[in-house]
């Protein structure tokens, strides 16, 4: 860590010591002084467009200056409450409201809108605007998920800057100029990026809103639960918002170690199945509804003692606790069963020291092998982009097809024949970028969605890592693939020829084998494959589940239920315990905590389970970002 010079700044009489180069707005946050901002965002480069953050700074010219583009200097005195600064900010707010439609009652942002809050805290108490306002057609669907309201827009350029700097996409731009400037998608085509949803969180007004959540409820109606995204192995932190038993929206929850406040569109918009009225809620045997006891006994009878004739299909998002109970079943009554986990890669469990996601920031050379990171591990993809475009890392991609990381002009893309990535990795040791990397080297490898020989690739990557002193990161795809691998339940067996099938979650990708005579389904949605199932058990969705996931870097994170699993729905650990009892294995846990404690004892990788963090809900998240420089 290089020595950072610390400087003393006085803000409204409070002296604060911050690293040199800290922006005035960030220094003010440290002493709890609000300098309102629209265009400034702590994850985007400062731009100084909205002029909302005007403060008086001395030494300096006697005019109000933008605090969001001004780094602090030793001995600087900042006054946010001087008459000049207060008037300057009030003037800016008045300007912002000249053309604002003031349709707060119908705006989805109303209630958590910085423009509303700042107007109350920093604006003039009365309005002098009586003329006609500018009108635009609205709402404009930017994509199936995002609606744009140009009248509400304050042109902070956060969305276009995010698209440009963070997502490396060119889909969003500004058209026209002056007061007629509008945010527009390129050539009015719908947005297709996998990262488009973040602009909803970024928008400081109601200009960009979710169409899934459009007019669903007001923010003050919602109960929020901090949780973890269940769509891939990155483990982004999310906040789940619930109203009247419905999951109404998912927003990001900034964790600088993992997601830096971004989540992908799958994590943000792919939640409507939770509220599906067709959700399975009652167990059924041969199509007729019954009790859990009857259904579980039928399942137990059907799968007991089948040995290798029993096939089990596991979902990719089973929790560590469920995996642990399943492991007990596999060690006991279900010994010998063939297990196939959904959506997992062919990569083996990791060994040795691992690269953490946040270490990608500091890497000088990043090598990505056989992974379409944009779709497989989207937020890791954004980390790589940040390291390359903001921190000057060099990037080498080994992939047969074009990937979105090619958009950087300096990306070295080595196109391998499918299946020969390992050979290309071996050749890399002599690559010019790796002669003098000038810092850490990161190697991220996937399995090419099955096209590569995983074992050979891992060996080649490990060899290369040893040569150039790099750290490795396996890019798992399945949400809890890593945790399941560590618990030994992430099977990769073929289910062909099994007689009994327990299909947990979505049906096996290869379809239900024809040899199956007894088919038990445990799923949260009805599907065509359930037609001939002997038993259908209702499962919880990710919003009703509690437990933990191990993400691809080995971090154990807890997910919490945002929506109650209302009877007759049962939590999966409960179902597994009862199933075990029906199979003759008494798993007598009274709740999830004993399971976690026992799993923590049995598996060192799950030691974090011994002390789950307090389930107290966090304060209402500030969508503008945390008060932290």
């Amino acid at each position, binding site marked *: 860590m290089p020595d950072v010079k610390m400087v003393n700044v006085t803000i409204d009489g409070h002296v604060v010591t911050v690293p040199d180069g800290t922006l005035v707005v960030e220094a003010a946050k440290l002493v709890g002084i609000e300098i309102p901002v629209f265009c400034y965002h702590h994850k985007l480069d400062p731009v100084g467009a909205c002029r909302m953050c005007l403060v008086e700074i001395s030494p300096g010219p006697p005019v109000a200056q933008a605090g969001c583009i001004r780094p602090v200097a030793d001995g600087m005195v900042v006054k946010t409450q001087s008459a000049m600064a207060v008037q300057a900010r009030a003037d800016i707010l008045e300007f912002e409201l000249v053309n604002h439609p003031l349709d707060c009652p119908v705006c989805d942002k109303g209630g958590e809108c910085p423009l509303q809050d700042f107007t109350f805290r920093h604006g003039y108490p009365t309005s002098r605007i009586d003329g006609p306002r500018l009108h635009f057609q*609205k709402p404009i669907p930017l994509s199936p998920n995002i609606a744009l309201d140009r009248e509400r827009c304050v042109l902070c350029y956060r969305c276009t800057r995010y698209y440009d700097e963070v997502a490396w996409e060119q889909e969003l731009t500004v058209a026209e100029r002056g007061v007629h400037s509008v945010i527009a998608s390129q050539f*009015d085509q719908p947005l297709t990026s996998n990262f488009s949803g973040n602009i909803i969180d970024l928008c400081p007004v109601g200009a960009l809103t979710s169409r899934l959540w459009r007019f669903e409820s007001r923010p003050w109606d919602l109960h929020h639960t901090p949780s973890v995204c269940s769509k891939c192995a990155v483990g982004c932190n999310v906040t789940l918002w619930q109203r009247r038993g419905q999951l109404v929206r998912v927003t990001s929850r900034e964790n600088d170690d993992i997601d830096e406040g971004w989540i992908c569109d799958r994590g943000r918009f792919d939640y409507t199945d939770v509220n599906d009225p067709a959700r399975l809620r009652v167990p059924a045997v041969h199509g007729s509804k019954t009790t859990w006891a009857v259904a579980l006994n039928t399942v137990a009878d059907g799968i007991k003692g089948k040995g290798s004739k029993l096939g089990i299909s596991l979902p990719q998002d089973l929790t560590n606790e469920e995996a642990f109970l399943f492991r007990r079943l596999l060690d006991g009554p279900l010994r010998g069963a063939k297990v196939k986990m959904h959506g997992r890669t062919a990569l083996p469990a990791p060994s040795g020291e691992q690269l953490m996601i946040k270490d990608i920031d500091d890497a000088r050379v990043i090598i990505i092998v056989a992974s379409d990171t944009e779709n497989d591990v989207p937020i890791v993809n954004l980390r790589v982009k940040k390291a390359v475009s903001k921190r000057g890392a060099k990037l080498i991609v080994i992939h047969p097809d074009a990937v979105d990381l090619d958009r950087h002009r300096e990306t070295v893309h080595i196109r391998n024949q499918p299946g020969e990535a390992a050979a290309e990795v071996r050749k890399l040791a002599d690559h010019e970028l790796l002669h003098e990397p000038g810092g850490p080297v990161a190697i991220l490898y996937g399995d090419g969605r099955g096209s590569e020989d995983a074992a050979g690739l891992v060996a080649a990557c490990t060899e290369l890592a040893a040569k150039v002193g790099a750290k490795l990161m396996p890019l798992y795809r399945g949400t809890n693939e890593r945790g399941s691998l560590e618990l030994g339940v992430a099977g990769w067996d073929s289910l062909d020829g099994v007689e009994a099938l327990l299909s947990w979650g979505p049906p096996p990708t290869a379809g239900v084998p024809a040899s199956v005579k007894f088919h038990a389904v445990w799923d949260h949605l009805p599907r065509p494959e359930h037609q001939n199932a002997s038993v259908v058990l209702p499962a919880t969705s990710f919003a009703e589940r509690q437990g933990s996931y191990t993400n691809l870097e080995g971090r154990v994170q807890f997910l919490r239920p945002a929506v109650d699993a209302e009877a007759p729905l049962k939590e999966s650990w409960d179902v597994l315990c009862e199933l075990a009892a029906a199979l003759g294995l008494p798993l007598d846990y009274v709740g999830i905590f004993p399971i976690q404690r026992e799993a923590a004892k049995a598996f060192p990788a799950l030691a974090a389970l011994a002390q789950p963090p307090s389930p107290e809900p966090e304060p209402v998240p500030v969508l503008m970002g945390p008060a932290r420089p």
Partner: protein
Amino acid sequence: MADENGNDHDPTPLRRPGEGVPPKPEGEKPSIAGDVAALAGGLKTTLSEFFKPVVTTMYPEEKTPRSERYRGRHYLRRYDNGLERCIGCELCAAACPVGCILVIAAENTDEKRVSPGERYAKTYEINMLRCIFCGYCEEACPVQAIVLGPEYELSDTSREKFIYTKEKLLEPLPPDVEARLNAKGTAVPTPAPLPNPPPQGGRETTP
């Protein structure tokens, strides 16, 4: 005996028996004539009431007049063109001190236009058993959609019937009340319906 501060109190009452009590007045001596006179005096009062005008209102056949600002049951109003005023903003529910209002909003479409703007109330329910008729909802409403009318006879035969649904609330206000509301200038001009959703890539319409 100790109080909450731990001080012991003397159980002795502060006033001794008889202390401070005014002496009994010296009464007149009882007599039969006096008793009869007293009885007649009482009956005179009673009889005189027979000939005074009756002030009792014969409810329910007759009802007392109520002030214009009387806060009875709620109504949801419509514009002249039949569109609902309510935009589903839930400010009434937010203002409600007892939480008896439930609003679930939805988006207007061209096929199904319920209110003039983008948003309308798909569900609007008031739990009249819980309502305290404070009128805050009426004050909070930005479009004068919800008003408290003059009716107060809200008895019914089951608790469920006291959840007033949107259909019930949309019953027309008594004409005199509606006329009074319009005369007071609370009527906002009927906004022209917006095309919704607009064509892709809409541009500015008017400067």
